[in-house]
């Protein structure tokens, strides 16, 4: 007869993928129940430590850990690439934002400069000065997290990402402490994008995961290119009310075009027989993880755009801003669907061998 403890434990095991449970469930249950006498099994529940260990195993097997099914291996590769690209985007955005701010302040009229510096110099109290300085500096940890992750310093990258994402939660801290705060959809989307990145980083970069690698491009060059794209779009669209955020769209679009061009080039070479063996290897243009990760990234930027659009509508901004923000949201929504479909097709066609522990980063 099945005891209550066994029933409860089997309920916990439902966190594991069905394919994993089909192989392991009976064995795991047998191992677990050995520790308990039969007469006490109706009075006990699995401890939270046991539940946590199964949850960790579930995350690991769903993100390509040892023993994971092929689709979970693909899911892991997708989430890892998303985390890396998202950290790159966040880092470049913060770097560009501060570089532009400093460039402006250095040439700004004295009154504007004093206004900017006054926030940090403790005129409104030392605590306020420290807080504002931290809020200004901490997001730059995204850049350090990017460097750490590409050097395979996973824990360092995680700690730095958490530090970088903290300022986005200040509105929640202000709200909880009764401070003056106005929470809008944009704030929530902004905080969510940072913390989703942290979550992806912590879940997918387990000990079985391969080191993070950017497809085809050097990490420093990628950071510089994204910064140039962001800075360029801000300079070209000077009057944009949310110019820094709009540049996220530009970068995602550039990434998608670059991937599509590489895919077409790979197809041509494949048809003409020029493609070397392993052209569509893991991390390559034919790897379904690439469009799927770009789809996730587009979805995150779309959430930010939608939040900003709502804010612009509330603020009664001129119609041109609304149309621009709406057009960006529409483009991003289209990208999410197109990339999702493309990734799904590539995965089904099985053009690429699924990513392995030795997954390559070469796109060429």
């Amino acid at each position, binding site marked *: 007869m099945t005891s209550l403890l066994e029933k409860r434990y089997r309920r916990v095991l439902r966190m594991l993928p069905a394919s994993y449970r089909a192989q392991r469930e009976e*064995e795991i249950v*047998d191992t677990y129940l050995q520790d308990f006498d039969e007469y006490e099994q109706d009075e006990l529940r699995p401890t939270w430590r046991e539940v946590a260990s199964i949850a*960790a195993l579930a995350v690991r097997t769903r993100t390509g850990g040892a023993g994971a099914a092929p689709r979970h291996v693909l899911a892991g590769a997708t989430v890892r690439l998303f985390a890396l690209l998202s950290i790159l985007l966040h880092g470049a955005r913060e770097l560009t934002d501060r570089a532009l701010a400093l460039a402006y302040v250095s040439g700004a009229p004295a009154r504007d400069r004093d206004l900017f510096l006054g926030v940090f110099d403790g005129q409104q109290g030392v605590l306020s000065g420290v807080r504002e300085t931290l809020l200004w500096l901490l997001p730059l940890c995204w850049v350090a997290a990017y460097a750490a992750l590409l050097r395979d310093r996973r824990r360092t990258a995680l700690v730095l990402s958490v530090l970088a994402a903290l300022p986005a939660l200040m509105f929640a801290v202000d709200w909880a402490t009764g401070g003056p705060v106005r929470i809008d959809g944009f704030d929530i989307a902004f905080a969510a994008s940072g913390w989703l990145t942290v979550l992806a980083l912590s879940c997918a970069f387990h000990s079985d995961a391969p080191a993070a690698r950017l497809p085809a491009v050097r990490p420093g060059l990628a950071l510089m290119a994204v910064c140039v794209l962001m800075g360029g779009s801000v300079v070209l669209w000077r009057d944009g009310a949310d110019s820094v955020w709009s540049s996220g769209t530009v970068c995602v679009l550039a990434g998608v075009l670059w991937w599509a061009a590489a895919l077409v080039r790979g197809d041509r070479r494949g048809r003409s027989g020029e493609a070397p063996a392993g052209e569509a290897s893991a991390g390559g243009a034919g790897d379904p993880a690439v469009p799927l990760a770009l789809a996730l990234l587009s979805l995150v930027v779309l959430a930010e755009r939608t939040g900003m659009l709502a804010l612009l509508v509330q603020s009664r901004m001129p119609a041109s801003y609304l149309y621009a923000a709406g057009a960006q949201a529409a483009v991003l929504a289209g990208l999410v669907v197109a990339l999702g479909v493309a990734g799904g097709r590539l995965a089904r066609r099985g053009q690429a061998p699924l990513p392995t522990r030795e997954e390559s980063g070469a796109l060429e």
Partner: protein
Amino acid sequence: MASRGLTQTAFFVLVALTDEPRHGYGIVQEVDALSGGRVQLRIGTLYGVLDRLAADELIELDREEAHQGRLRRYYRLTDAGEAALSEEAERMAEGARTAARRVEGRRGGATGKQPPAASPPHGHVRPGLAGGGA
């Protein structure tokens, strides 16, 4: 795995399989005994480690048995697992020897004896100045 080295848990699981094939609960008990109760394997952790060791071909399935209507799998150490364990044990032994030498040197310094020149008692001595001259 080899490039990252064995985790403490993986090390103890391999040690637990050196003398005979064991099933999951047998491994949990043996690791508990081997580590003097310091390493208590949760089930999720155990199966994560078993999956990884099997994927790296350091362990393999020995046999399957039915136990109270449920499946019980026994695992055994492979030759590659034995080699990895031996390498890790040697690495740890080397670390232990180094630590012992340093502790010995520190005690020597505290009692007025001169520590060996190659292993200064504290990390405060600059490498280029070890043995005097400053």
